[in-house]
């Protein structure tokens, strides 16, 4: 990539079409290194060669950038936190209901604490199940674009 012909094109684009650009000009090319060589028995390492050459996927990766991925990760994290919080809240509420129905003094403090933690634990597991199911459902939704609202704005694009 270093000092290559792409830089010449980028310079001309910036010179002539600066106002028309919505994003910086990016170059996708082989790394500025010599081709991969392994000094031992095999002269070349195909895996290293693959990593250093622009593969089919790298253009797409440049377009979507880290932006989409980080958004996806934030979404997953929020979903996980929300699901677990709902589960824990439900566990707490059910435990309070259970606690009211049991006559006072009929169980020791140890049994009560154990039951409480059992309720919270099942709430936590319930939250994980919700998270898992929503994640799977969100993943499945990409196969049914019509159900998701038809012509939705693709990821990474501002609304039209």
């Amino acid at each position, binding site marked *: 990539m270093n000092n290559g012909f792409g830089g010449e094109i980028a310079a001309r684009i910036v010179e002539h079409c600066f106002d028309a650009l919505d994003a910086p000009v990016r170059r996708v090319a082989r790394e500025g290194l010599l081709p991969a060589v392994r000094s031992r028995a095999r002269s*070349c390492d195909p895996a290293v060669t693959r990593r250093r050459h622009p593969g089919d996927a790298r253009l797409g990766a440049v377009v979507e950038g880290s932006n989409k991925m980080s958004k996806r990760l934030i979404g997953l994290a929020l979903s996980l936190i929300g699901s677990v919080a709902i589960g824990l809240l439900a566990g707490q509420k059910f435990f309070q209901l259970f606690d009211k129905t049991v006559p006072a003094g009929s169980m020791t403090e140890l049994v009560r604490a154990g039951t409480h933690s059992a309720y919270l634990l099942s709430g936590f597991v319930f939250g994980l199940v919700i998270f898992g199911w929503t994640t799977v459902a969100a993943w499945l939704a990409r196969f049914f674009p019509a159900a998701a609202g038809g012509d939705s704005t693709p990821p990474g694009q501002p609304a039209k």
Partner: protein
Amino acid sequence: MATGGYKPVVEIQFSDYSYPAYMQIRNEISTLRWRSGGAWSCPVVVRMATGGYIRGGPFHSQCPESLYIHTPGWYVAYPSNAADAKGTDENRVPHRRPRHLLRAQGLYRQVFSKSFEPDADYLIPFGKAKIVQPGTDMTAITWGSGVVRCQRAAAELAKDGFSVEVIDLRTLVPLDQDPSFRPYGRPGRRSSSMKRR
């Protein structure tokens, strides 16, 4: 031979092997017309297999096109498929400039670079790029083995709703400025651009 009126076509097996001839390429051939006041010229054609993707070693995988586009006097073509290779390779037309024809060796014997063989009159004018695929959201300006990879990436991005324009420069010197820059002139277009090789 070229100065004597012949039309030699030199095939260099790998472009990495062209460096021993760089003195002649850079000093002798490129300046001959200038040195002789236009009296002599050396319209030699040099064909070279170029670039990576063949798992070659350090002397079989280089991309020296930036050396040769910096060498005044030479035309540089970098076709991306068999038909373009023939169209730029044709040496019947009187040509006073020496020409480099860089072929992406990663495309040799690949199904996707096959094309119908054009007839004998098929000539691609130097300095004429080709819009391989129209698009609206983004432009990929590329050449050689990058073209098919950009097309594949564009097909992937089309699934996400992106419309990617792919421009094949075909010849690097002279560079076709028109298709590269015309899309950007339209107001209100969302466009970024990238190049790969």
